[in-house]
């Protein structure tokens, strides 16, 4: 088997509070291969972004990695600090944030921001860096890149700015892109363009992409595999088509039933009763059991099964029975 670009094993993020220790990410494992797009879905607070931030080492204090391992191209990166960590960011992992309007420094031209990123990671001259900057803008589909390189961020539209952000994330040619809700702040018509762009770059360059979103449409459109997160844990992980059409975890079943795209033709959208528990109110047993229509006694008392990267698809005692 080909070595995956990113391997996350049992990743746990903790936030110490005055009363207890919260675990926004709890023993999460997954792989992403070169040229593969892994879609990570879940509601707000499910731990999707926290997982992405943990991978790139951008957790805000007091959140920290409390357990598990992160491997990038065969090197362990979760224990890196200082300059070593900085050199991984941007060079080996690129990140795209949700809001292109605020991700770019308003006082620097996009050329300045591209050149500084290229020069901090690659040993090239100023002219060469500028050349590469123009190329990367061309690549993400900015028209007349050579002229627009001296423009400021506010002179671009939202969609164009997100293209610039992607160019910035890609300009040092990282092997992994973490895209944290890259389309949420954009118009629907622009969303499709950005997703198509990410897909194209991923396939052309063989970049691994971790696509964090709560938009099932984006997942269906772009993802090769899907990871469903719930209350900090991995609920289901599998090939996109299977997860979307034959969900194995009761939560994924509920999620699909409440998505217009997946339940096309139905008259009413179903909703999952209740809401995701707060992290400081987690009960023993499966976190989804209070809302789960199939929950049994076992689900409420025994710790839920942990989903390993390759074994099984759903972290549920009843997986397989539910779908029928």
């Amino acid at each position, binding site marked *: 088997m080909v070595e995956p670009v990113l391997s996350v094993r049992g990743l746990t993020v903790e936030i110490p509070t005055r009363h207890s220790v919260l675990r926004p990410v709890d023993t999460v494992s997954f792989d992403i291969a070169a040229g593969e797009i892994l879609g990570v879905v879940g509601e707000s607070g499910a731990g999707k972004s926290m997982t992405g931030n943990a991978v790139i080492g951008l957790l805000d204090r007091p959140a920290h990695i409390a357990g598990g391992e992160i491997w990038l191209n065969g090197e362990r990166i979760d224990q890196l600090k200082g300059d070593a960590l900085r050199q991984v960011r*941007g060079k080996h992992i690129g990140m795209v944030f949700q809001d292109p309007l605020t991700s770019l420094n*308003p006082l620097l031209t996009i050329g300045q921001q591209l050149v500084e990123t290229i020069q901090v990671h690659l040993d090239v001259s100023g002219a060469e860096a500028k050349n590469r900057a123009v190329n990367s803008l061309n690549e993400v589909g900015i028209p007349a890149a050579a002229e627009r390189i001296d423009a*400021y961020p*506010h002179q671009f539209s939202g969609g164009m700015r997100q293209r610039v952000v992607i160019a910035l994330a890609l300009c*040092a040619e990282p092997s992994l892109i973490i895209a944290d809700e890259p389309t949420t702040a954009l118009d629907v018509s622009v969303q499709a363009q950005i997703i198509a762009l990410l897909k194209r770059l991923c396939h052309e360059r063989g970049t691994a992409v971790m696509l964090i979103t709560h938009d099932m449409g984006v997942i269906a459109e772009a993802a090769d595999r899907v990871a469903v997160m719930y209350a900090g844990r991995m609920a289901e992980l599998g090939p996109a088509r299977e997860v979307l059409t034959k969900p194995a975890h009761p939560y994924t079943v509920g999620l699909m039933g409440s998505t217009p795209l997946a339940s096309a033709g139905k008259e009413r959208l179903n909703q999952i009763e209740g809401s995701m528990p707060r992290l400081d109110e987690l009960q023993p047993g499966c976190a989804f059991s209070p809302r789960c229509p199939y929950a049994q006694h076992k689900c409420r008392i025994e710790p839920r099964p942990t989903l390993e990267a390759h074994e099984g698809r759903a972290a549920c005692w009843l997986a397989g029975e539910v779908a029928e």
Partner: protein
Amino acid sequence: MLAFTLQRVFQSIVVLLVVGLVAFSMFRFVGDPIDNMLGQERTDADIERLRGELGLDQPFPIQYGKFLKNAVQGNFGISYRQARPVSTILAERAPATLELAAVSGLFAIFFGVGLGVFTAIRRDGFAANAIMTISLLGVSLPTFLIGILLIYVFAVELGWLPSFGRGDTVKIGGWSTGFLTASGLKAIILPAITLGLYQMTLIMRLVRSEMLEVLRADYIRFARARGLKERAINFRHALKNTLVPVITVTGLQLGAIIAFAIITETVFQWPGVGLLFINAIQFVDIPVMAAYLMLISVMFVGINLIVDLLYFSIDPRLRIDRSAAEG
């Protein structure tokens, strides 16, 4: 850009006229200059004659109109006390005040921005917390007290620095400078610190809070995610984005430095325009007071104008939006 500048200049002139009017109307309550100018053995006829010569018997609007007419021509009248042209007196005194203000302004900006950035980056460090605590003193102690404390420690007890005056000065053209002599440089240290300390702490606290705000911004996070060096993030990305509000306040504070120089100049007997003004008040020397107030307001208005123009050079969004709006 040009239209904006012209508009601002026009506004500035209106402001100056109003300031002049208010200041001029106040002088009528300061006292009667005639009392000081004529000795004990004066007659009513003398008083009336002098009043007529000085134009003080005329109605207030006419006095103000005459003052304006002369002021526009650079003529601020004759000092009642020194019997010399006010413009000459001000020109003699201005270098002392401007040098003092420049040194304390630089002191305030240099240390204010530096310490502000330091305390923002090391926000949980011991040194940063200590600086923040001490800075409270700088904000809350009145200027004259700081001056007296500094004199006590550095002039009286340690004897390192002079306690008053400007030291030796060198004349270059019409400008007398204390920067070229050792005693002049030594003499400016204590008054400059006294005058600039409040502004320094103000700038420092402002830079700190703005920096903390900016450091939370998405583009700083994105800069981190791109693997930029901490130094580049802090200074190239964060500090520049804090500058617009900082320049606003700093600009106004520079005006305040010149205006508040009155107190520092009194404490240190610094021979500048502030001390001149205090003496003029005691003598009800109306031409000097009027000229001084106009000078201060010209400086305030001028600094404000410069501040507004600086925004354009820092923030590209203003440049573009305005030029687009103008066609």
